[in-house]
């Protein structure tokens, strides 16, 4: 009789199966299509730019690849979890001698690895227009951002067990995280100041609950050079803290749920 797996080993086994499943799905082909579309659009833009051709190509391709990476990982995580739930795979996995936390951690580790691979492959075409050092920081940040999106997708899909609401909430949280800085600036503007300060207060309160994705994976790093180390580290630390928050919330919800 084989001895039961240690929790760490079990996490690695589950993560490995998640990676294997991703490789065998259509995800690599979709990623390739996104890279080709972004590079093709950037090549088209080179013919219409009057100046700053390289910057135009780098910024547009980076913006397209970033949003594509977030969309692909979110939909992949949500649909994978939903399919496993429909196939009763979750119940089967929990009949094995592993805890719910180990199962959740294994799934998340696997999805985070998929996210990191996606980020690295999406950075490859940007080498055409960006210097390697700033691109290195950008890809590190993109890997952290996509891992965070994977954690959002896993949390919502496990909590809701329905595809459309889980994708909608993941997309909503992601887009809010990317625009909350601008929303705060508008709320603090001169027009808004004439109104009650309640508006500004509620926007500031909402911002406390959101990840500051507008500070991460910034395209300006690719065209204007390396950011100050404190900026990049601050952005990565913010992502790490929110990742931990999502893991905590996911484990809390999963632990108390009747299956």
């Amino acid at each position, binding site marked *: 009789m084989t001895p039961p797996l240690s929790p760490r080993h079990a996490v690695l086994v589950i993560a490995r199966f998640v990676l294997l499943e991703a490789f065998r799905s259509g995800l690599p082909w979709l990623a390739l299509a996104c890279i080709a579309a972004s590079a093709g659009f950037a090549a088209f833009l080179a013919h219409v*730019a*009057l*100046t*700053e051709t390289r*910057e135009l190509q780098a*910024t*547009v391709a*980076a913006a397209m690849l970033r949003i594509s990476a977030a969309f692909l990982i979110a939909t992949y995580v949500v649909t994978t979890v939903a399919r496993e739930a429909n196939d009763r795979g979750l119940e089967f996995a929990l009949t094995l001698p592993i805890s719910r936390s180990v199962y959740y951690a294994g799934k998340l580790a696997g999805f985070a690895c998929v996210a990191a691979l996606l980020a690295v492959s999406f950075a490859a075409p940007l080498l055409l227009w960006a210097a390697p050092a700033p691109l290195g920081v950008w890809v590190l940040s993109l890997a952290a951002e996509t891992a965070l999106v994977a954690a959002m997708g896993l949390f919502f899909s496990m909590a809701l067990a329905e595809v459309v609401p889980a994708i909608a909430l993941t997309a909503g949280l992601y887009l809010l995280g990317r625009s909350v800085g601008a929303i705060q600036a508008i709320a603090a503007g001169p027009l808004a100041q004439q109104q009650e300060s309640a508006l500004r207060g509620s926007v500031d309160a909402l911002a406390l609950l959101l990840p500051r994705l507008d500070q991460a994976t*910034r*395209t300006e790093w690719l065209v204007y050079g390396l950011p100050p180390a404190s900026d990049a580290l601050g952005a990565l630390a913010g992502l790490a803290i929110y990742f931990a928050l999502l893991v905590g919330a996911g484990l809390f919800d999963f632990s108390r749920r009747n299956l």
Partner: protein
Amino acid sequence: MSSGTRSLSRVPPRVGILLAASLAAQLAWQAWRIPPAPQTADLPPAPPAALLHAASFGELEATARLAMLYLQAYDLRGDNAVPYQHLDYERLIAWLRAIVATDPRSGYALFSAARVYTENPDAAKCRAMLEFLYAEFGGDPDRRWPWLAHAALIAKHRLKDLPLALRYARAIDRQARDPRAPLWAKQMEIFILEDLNELEAAGVVLGGLIASGRITDPAELHFLLARMKRLDQQPAR
């Protein structure tokens, strides 16, 4: 063909006919459709910079440049009958101002303002664009002096307004501290007062900008050389 697919013979013939007929109809419709008449659309009012910022979802650099391509399309695209000379310059300047505020380090908007939108035979519109360049110059003199230098040349040679050209030249002398700037830019006022014609002055400016490493973009160089060639072919003004 994957093993999960049945053979073509299993498809009912009428379904195949429907597919082929609808595809043929689509191709025929698109091929024989009458092309739409050219639009005479003027620019819509510019969005506030804060709105552009919010709509960019953090991608300020890409948004600013795509907004410039959108503006560029107003005079370059085939289906718009309004060339940029006839655009509402108040709106155009508001767009350019919002774009500069969205990505202050990009030179695309200021390049277009200096090199494209000042080329307007309407002196009032040209003057408005020059004043926009002058106003924006103050925000980052070390990066933006080449466009104000060009504005000074336009003021001198096209508008024949030497006091205006000298105002711009003095602003460059006083505020720009870019160590890479060529000699003529460091003594802009003297350069403006020299008795050069427009082509000679433009040649000195372009040569200096290339030598100082300010122009590295092939598209920009191609554009500027084409303008020089056109200037060379024009009769003396």
